[in-house]
């Protein structure tokens, strides 16, 4: 009986370990991020663990970097069209839209300030008449 119990407890341990391993696999497959309001941290939620990943500031920065890159590529794709309307002007792009234009960065900065847009984190590009080539 005692042997059976021992085997039983060993079997239970094995089953537990198997469950844990399959849990870890599941965790890898289905990670979900959520924001904890109380601690201002982003967590990855899984069935077995609650692992801290990044702070809110880092998550926001990552989002801003992605948005900035997408806005920059929007400018590069549309430069041909922008040349017709904004030639020799600076244009500001935010969230995939041209938000304003001006003949100097300082003027554009003032315009965007009034709209509550920060130029430091927005794409501001000069629309030149023609493309310039330079080998670095």
């Amino acid at each position: 009986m005692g042997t059976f119990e021992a085997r039983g407890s060993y079997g239970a341990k094995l089953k537990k370990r198997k469950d844990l391993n399959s849990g870890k696999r599941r965790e890898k497959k289905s990670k979900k991020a959520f924001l904890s309001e109380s601690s201002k941290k982003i967590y990855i939620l899984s069935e077995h663990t609650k692992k801290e990943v990044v702070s809110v500031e880092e998550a926001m920065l990552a989002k801003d970097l992605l948005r900035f890159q997408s806005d920059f590529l929007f400018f590069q794709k549309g430069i041909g069209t922008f040349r017709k309307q904004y030639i020799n002007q600076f244009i500001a792009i935010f969230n995939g839209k041209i938000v304003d234009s001006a003949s100097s960065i300082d003027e554009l900065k003032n315009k965007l300030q009034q709209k509550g847009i920060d130029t430091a984190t927005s794409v501001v590009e000069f629309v030149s008449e023609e493309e310039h080539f330079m080998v670095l």
Partner: protein
Amino acid sequence: MSIVFPLFKGKFLGYERDAVTISVKCRGFPLLSVAVVDTGCPFTILSEAALKRTRIPYNSSTECGVVSLGPIQLQLRELGVCQLSLRDENGRTVTFNQKIYAGLALTKGILAQELPSFIGKDFLENNLFSIKNRKEGSFLIKDD
């Protein structure tokens, strides 16, 4: 373990080049910019056009000489050690401390306004970065 940072192709000064989106915190002021990864450039430089968008006091910084970039004379000013953040392939930001220079064009004109920022060899070497070209694109890889 290595950290992988995806680069993207952008058209800078007439040609397609590898670039990366960076966040810089300099003297307490933040800045987002796109920088060309240039292994031939010894310094990491923020362009004047990028700096003009911010409140970073670059005009009062120490002058460190004049360099030529094509037909343009560029005055370098030391901004000091700044925090430079990149987004890795998993969407997490990784921050590095890096000495950065402001590149102010002494030659005025339209071309000067189009000069991009540069991630130079100093940043790549200090942080043990290598550039890898794969079918799916180019990557900056940081090895420990």
